[in-house]
């Protein structure tokens, strides 16, 4: 004992040195591998090289010294996969422990390694290290000791001087040659321990490297106790346990749940971090015990089928079965499983769904149903549900379904009978569609009254066959719809007598040989809306003076021929079906006398296109009242039946839509039909050239003088305005001093031009957007709308001297006569090849509408002209620019400050100028540099170029094509604002 104490004291200093200079291996969490090397004096020289493999060979060598007697220690460099160790002796200098100076590399052979597992027992009273020798050929006299030394400081913070204390020895109990257990009593949780192993087998001593250990890190808690399992509601299991002893730190619990063998090995693991002491984890959600049990009773009320689906995972975890309990009558508010329940056999239907059938059933008993899950841990039950079979009846479909389209109303009447075993109130649903049309969808309709056994369905075509089905469900209860009943088909039948007889016409043919005239009646089949639904025959009533009327019947066809023997012969055609004869019928009187009445004065046919011809006619004065007109037409090049149509008597033109071949020749005839007979026809066999009037001739006769006189007045006004404008504007533009709006405007600056060309901000609500000046235009046009004018006009001034000019400019919302004058100018300028532009006035009345001034102006000034292209182009341009805008196309030369030389003279100078540049000048040239325009056309020349298309413009359907861009020249508001700013 004494020697041992001396040894321990010597080692105290030695450990200080070793711990300070040697790599100390920290003990990992409980389990690690520890090498032990032979402590051979020969080998222990730090300067002698050796290998670990040689160590093994020297086991059992006679010259071994006991480890305890040496002041040697093994220092190792640890890594994840290997370690390099060398031996330290107490006589060495500390610096020699520096690993870089130790040239002792060890191979990876670790034959003498131990598997070491250390832990602090749960009660924190014992450090246990279990050793397991990896190589089992040790000798029987193996002795193992665990030497340890503790410090309150961690190794990282310890200094050499602080490593003080006593090295203690804990004996290890080696029960067999393979494993030993070392116990270290009452370890302090606050200490850090250095420990190492000493192994002695006979004369061979083995030593392990230093190990560092913190007891806090390797506490192995005791297993939880009082573990119990509780079945909770809704298929959950609750696990509860208790910790065996309180610990000064929290514990982490891990729960492992394994499925019973043969169930696929599914496992669920849960971890909970609970405080020390009694711990509880929530119940685990598997198996899924949420089952939706739905039941349905058949229409005969003898069988109830219940269906439910299971989660596949649940099926893996255990077995499921449906249990039920039947109450005598009805269900309770809170159904619960009953101990005297029964198991109901269910059949797996696929997709994890089950079907269970109860037959016979108690219709008004309450069936409490639930699913029972049997598991190795126990039995779980789903939430019970209670079903009364009478409440979940799926009724049989209605029977005796009939469908019929009712007479007079045209409604589809559907009737049915209540299904058998339907003892409760039902509601019905109808679906219908035209028969034989599989591609059409069903139309659904709820029966208006639940108690009714029929319904009237409005259908779009009462003369069609319909397919009808009906289904029902209970008003109360489960409201399962029954299947659809068998389909019933309605029959097409007459709903009412024909409303009217057919329109008909006659063709008179004379037999020159027999001197007999035959009349062929032609009529058109009745439309279905007039017949509803069929016409079985036509009845031709004849009536001649002095003879009783007689009838003829035509069952097939739409024509009938009879001889015309009497001077007057009245014919009426009636339509008949199974429900009666038409009430409103047309008649026609054939009269030889009336056939000579020439009521139609003229007849013209205009070919619009290959499908449309316009027939225009005029009547002679002093004619008797006309009931209607009949237009006949036929292709003269083909032998085809004459075509005809009836026209109301107030019309004077009519659009005939047919297929007209342009190269064929057609004859159009117009018959006036009087009450006393058919008058004399007027015919034409060629198409008229040119346009046609949409209004009647009489109105044109009235309008033309008015338009002409108005044009004259407007022309005069234009001339006057020309003079005023030339005074106020024409001369003042070059000289801003004489025109208020031009004062302060520097035309040399580009910004000025921008302002001038900018759109007036206030009133410009009409489109189009401002466009670039077109380089070449053929027209000069001025268009003015009749809409509300801009209040401010173009110019504003406060200079009395310039009032005349300003007033002239401000009156620039031009009157209609002015644009034709500008057209005149435009024509001349066009010949000069100049550039044109457009001035757009404001148009407060926005919206797309027809520029009334244009047709009126054209009508007044252009309609009489002989050259339609010029003004026609203008009118088109005005129309396209439209929307009430004022368009001015003027030659740039009109801006000349030297005035307007030319035929118009001073009158032209009063106009607001429009053009900005000649063709041969650049766009940026000053207007004052523009050459003057000469040779402006006169009004007459302009009028001669006006198109004869005024009427086209007056017709909405004849919209001109092509756009004429225009450019506004001035933005007066901007100039005015600039002027005001300069005055300020």
């Amino acid at each position, binding site marked *: 004992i004494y020697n041992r104490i001396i040894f321990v004291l010597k080692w105290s200093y030695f450990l200080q040195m070793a711990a300070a200079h040697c790599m100390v291996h920290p003990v990992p969490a409980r389990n690690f591998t520890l090498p032990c090397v032979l402590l051979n004096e020969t080998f222990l020289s730090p300067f002698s090289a050796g290998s670990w493999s040689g160590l093994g060979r020297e086991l059992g060598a006679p010259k071994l010294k006991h480890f305890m007697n040496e002041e040697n220690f093994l220092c190792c460099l640890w890594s994840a996969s290997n370690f390099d160790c060398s031996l330290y002796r107490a006589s060495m200098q500390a610096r020699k422990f520096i690993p870089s100076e130790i040239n002792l590399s060890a191979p990876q052979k670790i034959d003498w390694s131990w598997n070491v597992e250390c832990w602090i027992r749960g009660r924190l009273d014992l450090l246990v290290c279990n050793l397991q020798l990896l190589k089992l050929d040790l000798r029987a006299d193996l002795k193992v000791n665990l030497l340890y030394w503790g410090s309150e400081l961690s190794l990282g913070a310890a200094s050499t001087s602080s490593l003080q204390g006593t090295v203690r020895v804990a004996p290890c109990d080696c029960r067999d040659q393979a494993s030993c257990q070392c116990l270290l009593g009452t370890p302090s949780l606050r200490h850090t321990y250095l420990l190492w192993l000493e192994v002695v087998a006979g004369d061979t001593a083995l030593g392990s490297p230093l190990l560092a250990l913190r007891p806090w890190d390797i506490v192995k808690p005791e297993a939880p106790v009082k573990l119990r399992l509780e079945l909770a509601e809704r298929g959950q299991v609750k696990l509860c346990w208790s910790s065996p002893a309180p610990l000064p730190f929290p514990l982490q619990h891990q729960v492992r749940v394994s499925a019973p063998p043969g169930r696929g090995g599914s496992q669920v693991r849960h971890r909970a971090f609970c405080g020390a002491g009694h711990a509880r984890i929530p119940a685990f959600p598997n198996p899924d015990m949420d089952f939706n049990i739905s039941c349905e009773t058949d229409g005969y*009320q003898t069988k109830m089928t219940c269906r439910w689906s299971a989660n596949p995972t649940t099926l893996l975890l255990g077995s499921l079965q449906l249990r039920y309990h039947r109450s005598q009558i009805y269900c309770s508010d809170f159904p619960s499983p009953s101990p005297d329940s029964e198991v109901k056999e269910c059949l797996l239907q696929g997709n994890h769904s089950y079907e269970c059938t109860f037959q016979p059933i108690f219709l008004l008993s309450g069936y409490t149903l639930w699913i029972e899950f049997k598991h190795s841990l126990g039995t779980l039950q789903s939430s019970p549900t209670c079903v009364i079979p009478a409440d979940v009846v799926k009724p049989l479909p209605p029977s005796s379904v009939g469908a019929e389209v009712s007479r007079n109303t045209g409604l589809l009447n559907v009737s049915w009978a209540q299904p058998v075993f339907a*003892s409760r109130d039902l509601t019905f649903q109808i679906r219908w569609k035209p028969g034989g049309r599989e591609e059409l969808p069903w139309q659904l309709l709820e029966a208006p009254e639940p108690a009714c056994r029929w319904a009237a369905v409005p259908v779009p075509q009462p003369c069609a066959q319909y397919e009808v089905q009906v289904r029902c469900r209970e008003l109360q209860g489960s409201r399962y719809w029954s299947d659809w009943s068998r389909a019933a088909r309605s029959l097409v039948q007459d709903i009412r007598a024909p409303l009217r007889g057919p329109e008909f016409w006659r063709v008179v043919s004379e037999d020159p040989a027999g001197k007999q005239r035959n009349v062929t009646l032609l009529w058109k089949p009745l439309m279905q809306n007039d017949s509803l639904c069929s016409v079985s025959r036509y009845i031709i009533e004849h009536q001649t003076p002095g003879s009783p009327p007689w009838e003829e019947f035509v069952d097939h066809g739409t024509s009938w021929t009879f001889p015309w023997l009497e001077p007057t012969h009245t014919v009426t055609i009636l339509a008949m079906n199974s429900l009666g004869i038409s009430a409103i019928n047309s008649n026609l009187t054939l009269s030889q006398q009336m056939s000579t009445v020439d009521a139609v004065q003229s007849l013209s046919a205009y070919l619009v296109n290959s499908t449309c011809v316009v027939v225009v006619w005029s009547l002679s004065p002093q004619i008797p009242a006309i009931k209607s007109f009949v237009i006949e037409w036929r292709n003269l090049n083909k032998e085809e039946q004459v075509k005809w149509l009836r026209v109301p008597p107030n019309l004077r033109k009519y659009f005939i839509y047919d297929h007209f071949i342009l190269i064929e020749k057609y004859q159009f005839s117009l018959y006036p039909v009087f009450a006393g007979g058919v008058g004399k026809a007027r015919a034409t066999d060629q198409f008229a050239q040119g346009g046609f009037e949409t209004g009647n001739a009489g109105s044109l006769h009235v309008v033309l003088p008015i338009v002409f006189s108005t044009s004259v007045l407007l022309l005069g006004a234009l001339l006057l305005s020309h003079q005023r404008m030339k005074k106020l504007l024409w001369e003042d533009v070059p000289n801003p001093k004489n025109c208020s709006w031009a004062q302060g405007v520097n035309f040399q600056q580009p910004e000025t031009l921008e302002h001038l060309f900018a759109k007036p901000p206030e009133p410009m609500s009409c489109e189009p957007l401002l466009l670039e000046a077109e380089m070449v235009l053929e027209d000069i046009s001025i268009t003015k709308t009749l809409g509300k004018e801009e209040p401010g006009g173009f110019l504003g001034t406060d200079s009395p001297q310039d009032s005349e000019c300003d007033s002239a400019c401000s009156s620039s919302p031009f009157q209609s006569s002015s644009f034709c004058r500008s057209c005149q100018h435009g024509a001349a300028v066009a010949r000069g090849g100049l550039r044109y532009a457009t001035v757009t006035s404001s148009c407060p009345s926005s919206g797309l509408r027809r520029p009334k001034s244009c047709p009126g102006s054209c009508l007044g000034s252009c309609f009489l002209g002989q050259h339609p292209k010029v003004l026609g182009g203008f009118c088109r341009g005005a129309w396209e620019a439209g929307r009430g805008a004022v368009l001015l196309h003027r030659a740039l030369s009109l801006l000349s400050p030297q005035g307007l030389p030319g035929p118009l003279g001073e009158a032209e100078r009063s106009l607001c100028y429009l053009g900005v540049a000649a063709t041969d000048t650049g766009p940026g040239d000053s207007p004052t540099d523009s050459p003057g325009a000469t040779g402006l056309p006169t009004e007459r020349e302009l009028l001669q170029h006006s198109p004869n298309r005024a009427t086209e413009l007056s017709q909405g359907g004849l919209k001109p094509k092509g756009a004429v861009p225009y450019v506004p020249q001035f933005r007066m508001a901007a100039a005015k604002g600039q002027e005001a700013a300069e005055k300020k």
Partner: protein
Amino acid sequence: MRGPGVSLCALLCLAVSVAVPVGGGRPVRLERVRADARALTRTLSTRLQQLQLFPLTLRISGLEGVPEGGLPDGGPPPGLGWAAQRLQLFQRLLAALPGPDVRLAQVSNDLENLRSLLGVLGALLGCPAPPAPPAAPAPHGEAPHTLAGVALARLRGCLDGVAARLEGVPAC
């Protein structure tokens, strides 16, 4: 017309749409019970009709033990007690017939439900418990189908009487 067993409480309950707990505490209203009883009566009658039974006028000797289904002649019309008693008698008779028959089993189940409904209805009306029915006749071993046919035909007549009782306020 009400039977002598109708108590003042029953009348009061009728006035306020009485309800009694049935089958676990759910209060059941009189109208619901009566409507269900009527519906079940119609269903059962339809079921019997589809069985193509013997005509009621057919008289078969040797079946005197089969109860008559029609209402007794003379006197006030019988009430719920009479109907429940008669139905129980028919139910016993059907149960005594040999051989499993799903149709007869369904009729028997319907009879049991109908008897339960009439019992609830009687409880709602404060009627006394119906007397126990007489013992069912022994099955006619030589002609079980005939016995069943006659019994069901007479049961249908009985149901007609029950349905008539249920149209108005039923008497005890």
